[in-house]
């Protein structure tokens, strides 16, 4: 069962669903088209490749085949094999080559099929690319983007080596920016910003979001990396979330509105650099904070977000901060137990009720 269906069932009643209108980001009247998260990413790639000849794409099966999830499909036909490049199964070398190309003026966009395979490339990502700017005293820059699908929760049973959420691996390394878009609008604007950024950017696409649809403006736009986005304004409680979890937060907020609870939803968008100010300001306003992330709990992103709240809003808190996270377990294969390890809308609802009742 898809997570959306399951959540609808477990919530009972009027079966709210994660429909596109849950998150409206384009002002009425703005010329825009509805597209999927996947199409938005592809469009960002297409536009940036058109705009800048130094942008090229490489990765395993990204050519005609379009990559493991079809994200780069049709780019090969448009730009040819010189700019949409298939590589051997050699993750460390793929990232290393991107770093080399970036050092001498190119803007590579790399795809690793699943974030789980980034383990093979950690030296090149964390110990080479991330540090070159610093080690050379600012002489070098490494403007690449590393796109990686991550996460689970779609009842897909991709098991322990294909379902992880690993954003904090990268966020722990100074020199890397780490972006987790939650909507088609954000995915396009943030990817364009990432490509134009002069630093290595880790761009984590949630697998389950690929088919999610939303409005994307016709006009060229970029979004700032390192700014949270207030997805919903509220006064009673703040939910801080990223990636797919933003949808759980929005759904919960809609439900809670019927109970008379006004929820503010902060989409972290980039966990590094982290926009502590926006989180802090919201926490000071509402005094109640729930943090939601799919990654496993321990040493996951919510720990850092909670610290931001403590540092900036301690005196304003009316309840201890509560978090909803993936469980501390490798992801199991069987549907029946996989289901239980992901955060769901129900968990978010309960957490909000808990801080409200404190």
């Amino acid at each position: 069962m898809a997570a959306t269906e399951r959540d609808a069932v477990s919530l009972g009643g009027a079966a709210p669903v994660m429909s596109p209108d849950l998150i409206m980001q384009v002002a009425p009247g703005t010329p825009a088209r509805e597209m999927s998260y996947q199409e938005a990413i592809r469009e960002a790639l297409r536009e940036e490749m058109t705009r800048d000849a130094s942008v090229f794409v490489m990765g395993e099966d990204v050519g005609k085949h379009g990559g493991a999830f079809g994200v780069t499909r049709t780019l090969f036909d448009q730009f040819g094999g010189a700019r949409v490049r298939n590589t051997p199964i050699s993750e460390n070398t793929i990232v290393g080559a991107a770093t080399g190309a970036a050092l001498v003026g190119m803007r590579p966009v790399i795809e690793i099929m699943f974030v789980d395979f980034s383990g093979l490339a950690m030296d090149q990502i964390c110990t080479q690319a991330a540090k070159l700017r610093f080690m050379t005293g600012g002489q070098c820059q490494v403007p690449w983007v590393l796109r990686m699908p991550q996460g689970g929760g779609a009842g897909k049973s991709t098991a322990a080596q294909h379902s992880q959420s690993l954003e904090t691996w990268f966020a722990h390394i100074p020199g890397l920016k780490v972006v987790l878009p939650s909507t088609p609008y954000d995915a396009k604007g943030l990817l364009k910003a990432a490509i134009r950024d002069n630093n290595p950017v880790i761009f984590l696409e949630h697998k389950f979001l690929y088919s999610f649809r939303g409005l994307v403006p016709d006009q060229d736009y970029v979004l700032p990396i390192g700014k949270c986005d207030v997805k919903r304004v509220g006064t009673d409680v703040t939910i801080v979330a990223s990636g797919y979890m933003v949808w759980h937060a929005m759904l919960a907020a809609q439900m809670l509105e019927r109970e008379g609870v006004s929820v503010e939803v902060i989409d972290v968008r980039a966990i590094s650099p982290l926009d502590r100010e926006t989180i802090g300001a919201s926490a000071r306003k509402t005094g109640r904070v729930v943090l939601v992330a799919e990654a496993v709990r321990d040493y996951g992103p919510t720990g850092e977000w909670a610290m931001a709240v403590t540092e900036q809003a301690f005196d304003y808190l009316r309840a201890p901060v509560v978090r909803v996270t993936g469980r501390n377990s490798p992801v199991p294969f069987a549907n029946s137990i996989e289901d239980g390890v992901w955060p769901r809308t129900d968990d978010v609802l309960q957490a909000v009720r808990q801080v409200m009742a404190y």
Partner: protein
Amino acid sequence: MNNEIPIDVALSMYGTMVRIRRFEQAVSELYARGKIPGFLHTYIGEEAVAAGVCANLRLEDKIISTHRGHGHLIAKGGRLDLMMAELFGKATGYNKGKGGSMHIAEPDLGMLGANAIVGAGAAIINGAAFTAQYLGNDGVAVAFFGDGATNTGTFHEAMNFAAVWNLPSIFVCENNGYAESTPRRQHQKIQAVAQRAVAYDMPGVTVDGNNVGAVYLATRSAVQRARSGGGPAFIECQTTRWRGHHEADQQHYRPKEEMLTIEDRDAIRDWRNELLARGVSAAQLDEIEQTAAQELENAVAFAEASPLPDPAQAYTDIFTPVSEAL
């Protein structure tokens, strides 16, 4: 050449191939019916590799497998019912439903696991080979992997490591000509994958992976050599992946002419003919087929009837308990 293979071994390899083929056909169909979740990579068309290699191995010898791993476990003696239950995600499966198709393992049979990280097994198998060397027994350890895997850094490091430590590691490359959608000529330049062995001063051979006898004989010499301290070897088995990379793969990248000829080579049909020529009766071979079909039917029934794992199972087996003796 194949005639020198003892008839009982020849028959047993036939049985192994048939069991693999039946199992894979069944899971492919069950997958289409939504009975099996996750990614499913089938081994149809490649059966002769696992069968020919593992016919040379003892229970204590170790193997490590890939994302396309069902055939290896079957060839090492895996039970179809416990495998089927694992693929269904049932509590009675080899790994309690926690691993599934890509992570199935049975250490008691010397099968150290399927693996969803391409190339990883080549490194791990060296540890098992080293342990045999260290303990002074004549065990060997076999890593199976694909042509695509030979482009990973891990593979090259593992080959060199095995060579310099003179380990009883046997590297078996299942060259099916593809890494997902990428044909081999687009992911490596060498004519034969076995050329890779030259760089590590390791014997490397290329055999017809559709000829189970040829696979058996090539492995036999590698195993004999490794057991007697002669060090590692590399065997390239040229084979064909009959189906998509995984079951959801539409294979748009495979040329039409190729699609039409995929099943031209059929290791099982060929071996059956060789056995008939050696005087085995058709009735005996049919019986092997029927036994496999029956075993499979039971396996599916077992998997269907088995319970799902309890949700609490998600939080067990994360750590191994510390032994009381500590």
